[in-house]
């Protein structure tokens, strides 16, 4: 089909072959232009299922437990956000929830919703619009930053209390890696290649 593609970063038109073996970059602005998009859809689905399980684990169990003078206190992610809310910082609570819970959940469940039918060459209702919206959600998924933020809090607390990392913290760390792998395997170019492959 069309062998002319336009760089989304600088609008330069390029004449290209269909599937490059390695990633190509724009000759003018150096933005990534094409990737070798021949990933396996099964891998992506497996990663998404794995991420979903890790997501539930990281929310169902306490992230951290602290012990001071015989008193213990633990918190989950939702508990942390609701504490912000009770202190009158609803906006901050929403931001934390969106970037660490709603964002990842929409991303994982949305991808599963699209990829499972796609594997059988079927189209989920609203497929194109949903995939477009998922790209917007991805910008607001900050799991890796959250993970580091938790570690910073642990370091600060370790001077005053005994700190015990919970199951959810490990799940969260694994979720961070799984989400990164999932995101790099479900780029828009890759997704549309699967869609076009199913039709052809």
């Amino acid at each position, binding site marked *: 089909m069309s062998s002319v593609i*336009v760089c989304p970063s600088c609008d330069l*038109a390029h004449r290209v072959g269909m599937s490059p073996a390695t990633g190509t970059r724009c000759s003018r602005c150096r933005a990534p232009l094409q990737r070798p998009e021949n990933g396996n859809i099964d891998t992506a689905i497996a990663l998404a299922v794995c991420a979903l399980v890790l997501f539930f684990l990281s929310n169902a169990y306490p992230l951290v437990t602290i012990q001071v003078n015989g008193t213990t206190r633990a*918190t989950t992610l939702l508990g*942390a956000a609701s504490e912000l809310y009770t202190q009158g910082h609803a906006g901050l609570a929403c931001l934390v929830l969106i970037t660490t819970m709603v964002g990842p959940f929409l991303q994982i469940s949305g991808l599963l919703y699209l990829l499972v039918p796609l594997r059988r060459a079927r189209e989920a209702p609203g497929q194109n*619009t949903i995939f477009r919206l998922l790209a917007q959600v991805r910008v607001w998924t900050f799991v890796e930053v959250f993970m580091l933020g938790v570690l910073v809090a642990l370091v600060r*607390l370790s001077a*005053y209390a005994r700190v015990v990392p919970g199951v959810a913290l490990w799940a969260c760390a694994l979720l961070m890696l799984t989400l990164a792998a999932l995101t790099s395997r479900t780029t828009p170019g890759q997704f549309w290649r699967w869609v076009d492959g199913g039709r052809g």
Partner: protein
Amino acid sequence: MSEAPTGKSLGLLVCLQCRATVRALQVAYPRCPRCYAHLFHRKPHSLAATAALLVCAAILYIPANLLPVMYTRTIFDDEQDTIMSGVLVLLHSSWPIAVLVFIASIVVPLLKIISLAVVVFSTWRRSPRYRTQRSELFRMVEFIGRWSMLDVYAITLLVALVQIRSLAFVSVGWGALAFAAVVVLTTFAARTFDERLLWESPP
């Protein structure tokens, strides 16, 4: 260099969502035939929107650094922490983490605001110099900006954990909200900026 064929000169539009290249149609609001996203030659009001968001972010950067982000009440004393004093506290327990927080919370937002301002201003002037470097700077800034949320998450967790009524009690300060607002505003500023404007030739 000015003769290089661009999407605009060839009448081609690129979908910023799914990266499909399509022939421009003579309709008011063209949409991508593949993913149904709006298509533009350039994002509408890009420079004005980015500049406005950036000014807001720059203003909020001041209270974000001056207002306390966290109050600590223990049986011995009351303390308030700004972002910077939090870094100094961390310096006692673990300096690599302190450096990390300093870079993520103070250096990154400032660099992001300054870099975006430089990119927007030079694009507005249609400066032909260092285009590739500015383009790469913009993409790097877009990528690292999210790390500024680090301290907001750390505070969230501290607030939730340190609620041992008789011993210690931590609450959030308005500085944290200002700080989060800086991150959100600069993220939106980067998203409303159309990189392609950077490459338009001078009039």
